[in-house]
């Protein structure tokens, strides 16, 4: 049962083929026996999960339940969970047990879903390889010498290795889509503001967005519908209706206008990855879509602008970690400054410190206009490119990341090389657009993802187009050899 999709598990639970307790226990056993190889989970909430599963079974026996009732889900360790340790991959929060749950967690609880545990991630979601985690890297289930991508690397690996049917992630610059691509699963970042950020530990608040990760688009539709919606507790939450995303999955995409940004096929793109994306484009042509080349002229500036905006916002967001109210505190502080400085120097890892330094520098007197204000202007130009493109096309297609999974350690000593991992994903965050990644092939037995980017609040069309692709291809059904075994 571990290799079934969320939709298939939901039907099986409804048909009484097995109970949520049986399913949950099976996955817990599987995590215990296999996760030593991957390090995908930081916390396994066994007792809590079995309690939730038993409640879900009881609710189901009484009658009408949500489609996700009794479905086990893994949550990225960035979402606060009442009474369950939430570390954000950092020593700073190694001892942090939140006194409340994130809005997203409450939605899953309300639907009767089961929380299996909390997944590993780059520290404070800063990384593209899951190697900045205080708890050690996650290994890619397709090749354990390689990274799973990041920052939602634990979530991606857990879903790919069939340790969980679905997981939650967050995407500030590609942190759902890039690990989804590298682990051969399907993951989506909706429009900025679609899902509440309340209780999601902040990295860069004008970019952060949660989203679902699963093994099919059908599953994403089901999950996204639950996760979305207005939340007065998040000041940037969008007040817009949430459509039934599953209802439009089977619409025909005959005549759908898909744009191919020429800048997304520049030098640096792995030829094998490029071939997979070309093949996906050809598949869309067969499905009746109208393909045309478009240009996003400012997209080469996405990475530079992002690495001002994101660290600047991070440096302010992370100022709250001071050793006073919760989290790590240094021993025997001699004065207040010593308390702050030693607490932060001990609690944060190298990459987080580097981003705080860059962010503080770019916001400091004399540099604000040249860096932060300049980056916000470039951000507008990048967004305007998309506005222009969506006048003539409905969706954009391109690679998710420049190459398949790379070996552990390959980019850790070169931050800029690591940052370029997100060269094709960052623009959607800067513009706030919805985007997803789905499997589109294998290169050297490592998965390749294709990315679709949609217009604001047009998640339904994005999911529809992606589902139509999965109806005629089998890439999303490929599993790593370990994940396919019993």
């Amino acid at each position, binding site marked *: 049962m571990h290799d079934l999709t969320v939709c298939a598990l939901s039907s099986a639970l409804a048909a009484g083929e097995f109970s949520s307790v049986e399913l949950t226990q099976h996955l817990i056993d599987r995590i215990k026996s296999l996760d030593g190889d991957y390090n995908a989970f930081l916390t396994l909430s066994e007792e809590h999960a079995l309690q939730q599963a038993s409640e879900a079974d009881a609710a189901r026996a009484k009658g009408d339940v949500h489609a996700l009732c009794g479905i086990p889900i893994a949550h990225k360790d960035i979402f606060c969970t009442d009474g369950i340790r939430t570390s954000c991959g950092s020593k700073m929060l190694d001892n942090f047990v939140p*006194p409340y749950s994130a809005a997203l967690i409450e939605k899953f609880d309300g639907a009767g879903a089961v929380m299996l545990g909390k997944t590993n991630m780059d520290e404070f979601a800063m990384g593209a390889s899951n190697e900045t985690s205080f708890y050690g890297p996650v290994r890619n289930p397709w090749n354990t010498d390689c990274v799973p991508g990041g920052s939602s690397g634990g979530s991606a690996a857990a879903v790919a290795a069939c340790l969980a049917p679905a997981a939650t992630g967050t995407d500030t610059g590609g942190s759902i889509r890039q690990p989804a691509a590298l682990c051969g699963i399907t993951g989506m970042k909706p429009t900025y503001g679609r899902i509440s950020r309340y209780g999601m530990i902040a990295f860069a608040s*004008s970019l952060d967005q949660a989203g679902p990760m699963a093994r099919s688009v059908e599953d994403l539709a089901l999950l996204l519908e639950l996760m979305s919606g207005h939340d*007065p507790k998040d000041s940037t939450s969008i007040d817009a209706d949430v459509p039934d995303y599953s209802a439009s999955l089977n619409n025909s995409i005959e005549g759908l206008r898909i744009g191919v940004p020429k800048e997304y096929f520049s030098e640096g793109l792995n030829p094998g990855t490029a071939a997979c994306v070309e093949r996906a484009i050809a598949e869309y042509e067969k499905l009746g879509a109208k393909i045309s080349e478009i240009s996003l002229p400012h997209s080469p*500036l996405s990475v530079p602008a992002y*690495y001002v905006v994101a660290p600047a916002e991070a440096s302010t967001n992370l100022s709250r970690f001071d050793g006073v109210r919760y989290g790590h505190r240094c021993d025997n502080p001699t*004065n207040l400054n010593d308390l702050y400085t030693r607490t932060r120097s001990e609690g944060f890892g190298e990459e987080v410190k580097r981003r705080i330094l*860059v962010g503080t520098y770019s916001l400091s007197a004399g540099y604000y206009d040249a860096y932060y204000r300049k980056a916000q*202007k470039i951000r507008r130009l990048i967004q305007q490119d998309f506005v222009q493109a969506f006048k003539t096309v409905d969706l954009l297609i391109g690679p998710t990341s420049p190459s398949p999974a790379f070996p552990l350690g390959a980019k850790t000593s070169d931050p800029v090389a690591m940052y370029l991992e997100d060269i094709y994903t960052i623009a959607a965050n800067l513009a706030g657009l919805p985007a997803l990644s789905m499997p589109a092939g294998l290169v050297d037995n490592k998965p390749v993802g294709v990315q679709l980017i949609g217009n604001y609040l047009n998640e339904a069309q994005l999911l529809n187009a992606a589902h139509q692709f999965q109806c005629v291809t089998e890439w999303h059904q490929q599993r790593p050899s370990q994940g396919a075994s019993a």
Partner: protein
Amino acid sequence: MSVDQSDIEKVASLSRLAIDSETTEQVVQKVNDILAMIDQMQAVDTDAVEPMTNPLDATQRLRADEVTEQDRREAFQAIAPATEAGLFLVPKVID
């Protein structure tokens, strides 16, 4: 633009971070690599462009000025490193 050792020391102090003197040189070099990448922005003329702070150009929503939070002092202080009489403890600030 690039930074030198004294710039990094100043920024670290503003950030309440201590940098090990053995690693300062390496930190300076990596920050300069990042700044060199970021400086690609300077090639674009943005004089007439309005800065974008929110991707949907949304402005901060206001709510009615009413107390909605419950008093959860005990739950919040239960996870604090040091408290006394309902207060968070920090090292002595004034002698």
